[in-house]
């Protein structure tokens, strides 16, 4: 007869051992690489070949690349500052539009889906199985000179002649971002709204609230954490996006921070500057995440959860 208590202490080691391969994997391919980015950004370059020479010893780190980045960020009108502000504007507009689309759709399906819910959910999940790049390709087809968008706009009479939508227009890039990222916002919103207890709404109605008041006073405040989560889920990857503007605009006029990073890292010249840009982007996103964590905690507290 085995002693029932015998396994408890040893069991912990067993479970830790089970987690070990995954933990080692994450250390090797997620944590270590971040240190390498720092070492490259704070290292030097080979004087002739311009290849980066990472500096592993923190005591010998040089801040040249960061000085270059900050100079570009904080002297007004300089390259990095323009690109950073543009990225911020694109992400803010695209996120706001996504929320305006995602919330009503998620709300309708969660509350009124009824027997069509399964089918509607298939429609929501479908974009997850279609490659992002294919969805951008679909819009390249539609937006080209002789594409269907121009056909429709000319036919309705909004424009006299076809426009070139793929030639550095912010509107095309923002359309692409919204189209690309909105499914990632709808799904978490749906999952959350679906869990809201309907008896709360019935209570609000019984106490004399109109349907709109019930929504404004009950559903909307309750879904605040989900709205914040949805914003974070799509805004973070948008800050690192370079392919949407490359495919739908190709012009330096709509270049985002991701394009700059891609240029420095994959272009081969001044890789430390690219690495420094990545670090700055990460710090900026960490601040955003911190704000998110604080506001979610506050929202939970207000709801007494």
């Amino acid at each position, binding site marked *: 007869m085995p002693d029932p208590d015998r396994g408890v202490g040893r069991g912990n080691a067993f479970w*830790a051992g089970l987690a070990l391969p995954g933990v080692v994997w994450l250390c090797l*391919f997620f944590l270590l690489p971040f240190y390498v980015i720092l070492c490259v950004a704070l290292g030097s370059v080979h004087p002739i070949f311009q290849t980066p020479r990472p500096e592993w010893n923190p005591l010998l780190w040089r801040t040249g690349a960061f000085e270059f980045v900050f100079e570009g960020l904080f002297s007004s009108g300089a390259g990095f500052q323009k690109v950073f502000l543009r990225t911020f504007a694109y992400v803010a507009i695209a996120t706001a539009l996504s929320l305006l689309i995602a919330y009503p759709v998620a709300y309708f399906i969660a509350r009124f889906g009824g027997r069509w819910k399964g089918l509607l959910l*298939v429609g929501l999940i479908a974009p997850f199985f*279609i490659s992002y790049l294919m969805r951008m390709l679909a819009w390249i087809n539609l937006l080209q000179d002789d594409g269907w968008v121009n056909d429709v706009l000319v036919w309705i009479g909004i424009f006299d002649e076809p426009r070139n939508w793929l030639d550095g227009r912010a509107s095309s890039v923002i359309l692409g971002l919204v189209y690309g990222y909105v499914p990632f916002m709808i799904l978490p919103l749906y999952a959350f709204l679906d869990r809201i207890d309907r008896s709360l709404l019935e209570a609000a109605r019984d106490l004399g609230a109109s349907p709109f008041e019930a929504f404004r006073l009950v559903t909307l405040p309750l879904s605040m954490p989900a709205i914040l989560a949805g914003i974070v889920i799509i805004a*973070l990857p948008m800050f*690192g996006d370079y392919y949407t503007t490359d495919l739908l605009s190709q012009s330096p006029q709509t270049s985002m921070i991701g394009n700059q990073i891609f240029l420095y890292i994959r272009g081969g010249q001044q890789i430390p500057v690219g690495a420094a840009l990545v670090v700055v982007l990460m710090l900026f996103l960490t601040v955003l995440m911190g704000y998110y964590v604080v506001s979610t905690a506050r929202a939970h507290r207000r709801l007494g959860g």
Partner: protein
Amino acid sequence: MARIREWWSNPWGKPRFLALFTMLYLVWSIVPILIAIRFSFNDGRSRSTAQGWSLRWYLDDPDLSIRNDPDLHTALFQSLRLATIAVLVTVPLGVALAIGLTRWRGRGAGTSRAVSLATLVTPEIVMGTALLLVFVHVLTFIPLGTIAQAIGHITFSLVFVLIIVRGRLLAIGPEYEEAARDLGATQFQALRLALLPMLVPATVASAIIVFAISMDDFVISQFLSSGTATDTVPVRIYSTGRTAPTPALNALATLTLGLTLVVALVGYLLWRGVRAARGGTGSALQDFAALDAEPLR
């Protein structure tokens, strides 16, 4: 007018404006894809004027079809190769990680969960840069190309397995293993005979997700590619989408989408089968829809 007032004051009626809005959204999200698929079957070279139907861009064109343009079918095979490797490595690694991190009581468990969650919110361009630099400067024995790309795919898809399996584990609770242990099973036997069989549906679901996100991935595949030979389908779409597009690119995207859907459908049927055999309830769609980071907190 009276009808509108009646509809407005009926608290249980469906809001028609929202219904219309949802329909418009679904049309807007699906129709561009259908149009892109339609032009992959175009007989002519245009991607905006219907010019009859044919399989020219899949099979028949002597130079530019998927069958005859090596760049295109190489990309398709590379995508499938990476997705297969990703599923085969990530699923066992992730299931073990999820079980370990859920049952292990210690400070390391919480930290490890936080690190996994960090991979979820790290933009891909950051992870791509980080992995590129690590393979070039530290782990130099790993060459850029298939192996590096596969490592990247495994790293960012690990967290999805963790979320799905951990969600299921929290729902199951520790009682079944405790019962098995009371009946004399060793720790390993309890894991193998009691816990793992209950995790089969979650394992199948995570395999589908890993396959789909690996097929979808662009940034990591591009950063860690060693050249045209290791370009995946999304990388090919990116590099020729604006410069030299033909309907063959639409055909490539359509074929990739078809393959992804077939794998997802087979996986879904398998999931339903194992779920029914194990007496589970609920809808798979609702399960996938509920996929969020909640269990990690």
